[in-house]
């Protein structure tokens, strides 16, 4: 495909002799949002890290040549050990002050936040800063690993809105990891259901049948109904 950004074929990941991902194949096109959905422990974070080239794998991962990737990790447990201001955090990736201010505007955060310590931010602000940090060098694709917990009330919802806005503004391609079924309908063009194996892959409204969801979460379904908008 001409506007293909990522093509994955027969991807296997084994960590410490345990099979984490088995035989994944999918493709992401420019400007698309692919949601990776699955219960906790399904290997979603592992998949993102493998795509980033952090973990060893077998099979094919073909990114578009010289693509710039932004990554929003699920959590950064060590960052609060360091007395880092928001500005200093952005300085670590060598973006100019103007670029930093520009990105703060687009993630909807006031410039005053630059002087604040990372450790003093609310979880919602921190999430936004992580997104801004990933986007500051102007990547073409964003890999977003949803935090499991700890986002303040209302914060999570607006992060989804923010991603939706950024996707349109910057013509971003997004790979979005989540365990929240409701988000899939809001953001995704395509969805990949993952529980070590690929259980389904396609358009959310076509493939997310109750049976498939049940199979995906096998006994762990926390979601009973949803409304389409």
């Amino acid at each position: 495909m001409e506007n293909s950004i990522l093509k994955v074929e027969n991807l296997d990941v084994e960590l410490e002799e345990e099979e984490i991902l088995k035989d994944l194949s999918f493709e992401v096109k420019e400007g698309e949002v692919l949601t990776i959905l699955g219960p906790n422990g399904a290997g979603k974070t592992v998949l993102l890290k493998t795509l980033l080239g952090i973990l060893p794998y077998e099979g094919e991962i073909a990114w578009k040549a010289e693509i710039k990737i932004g990554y929003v990790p699920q959590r950064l447990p060590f960052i609060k050990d360091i007395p880092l201001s928001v500005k200093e955090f952005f300085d670590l990736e060598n973006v100019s002050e103007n670029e930093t201010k520009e990105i703060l505007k687009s993630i909807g955060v006031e410039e005053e936040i630059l002087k604040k310590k990372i450790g003093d931010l609310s979880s919602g602000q921190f999430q936004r800063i992580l997104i801004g940090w990933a986007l500051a060098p102007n990547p073409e694709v964003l890999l977003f690993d949803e935090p499991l917990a700890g986002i303040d009330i209302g914060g999570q919802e607006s992060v989804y809105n923010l991603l939706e806005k950024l996707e349109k503004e910057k013509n971003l391609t997004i790979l979005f990891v989540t365990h929240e079924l409701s988000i899939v309908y809001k953001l995704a063009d395509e969805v990949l259901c993952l529980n070590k194996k690929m259980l389904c892959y396609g358009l959310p409204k076509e493939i997310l049948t109750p049976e498939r969801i049940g199979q995906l979460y096998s006994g762990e379904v926390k979601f009973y109904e949803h409304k389409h908008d």
Partner: protein
Amino acid sequence: MINQFILSLISGIFIGGVAGYLGSLMLSKRMALVAGPLGHLTLPGIALALIYGFDISLGAFPFVILGIVLIWLFEARTKLPMEALTAIVFASGVAIAFFFLPIEQAETALVGDISKIQFKEAIITLILCLFILFLTKKIYPKITLINISEDLATTQKINVKKYNLIYLILIALIVALGVKIVGGLLTAAIVAIPASSARNLAKNLSQYKFLALIFGILSSAFGIFLSKLTFLPAGPLIIVVSAFIFLISAILKK
């Protein structure tokens, strides 16, 4: 000829300051205590240096490197937690040193003695300190990002292994120099305490780095002055001053 006291003071200030500065980087990876076991490991090397009359840092350095390599090899082979391996390796270092450490010089080995530093030794110390300072400053942003998350560093195309190696070599160097002023027992203190005090007071990273450096310098300077006045050994005095600064910083912390 420069006065012996001035020579000791300047050497102490350089080592203390640079140890504080590098310590600020180590504290943020919860690695500050690594300097302790590594210091203990230097004891056989210090013992050899004392017996054969060469520079104790020169004796210490190969043992720190040996320690790091051993810990790294055992870790790869046994997958035991780092602290358990560190404990095994450093305790062996102390044990072995006691077989042949000249007992009349045990104090120098254990808590250091900067008061008799020679001119040539002092010059080498200053050059090495400046080298460590320069290199630490250079790798600081990259190691900070690695400390925050190796994954993020990788996405920034940082060669994590290369920077970690440089970082370890710097730690080995500062430990080897540190034994001159505080001996094999107290090296953890000169990297951990100034950085901890700085953490209590700093509002951002640049203040943190700067304060760690300053607290390292102040501790060494006052420790060596007090030693001159009281005839007590400088090493423990430096640590006591450093701990006192920490106490004040803990009180002032908002």
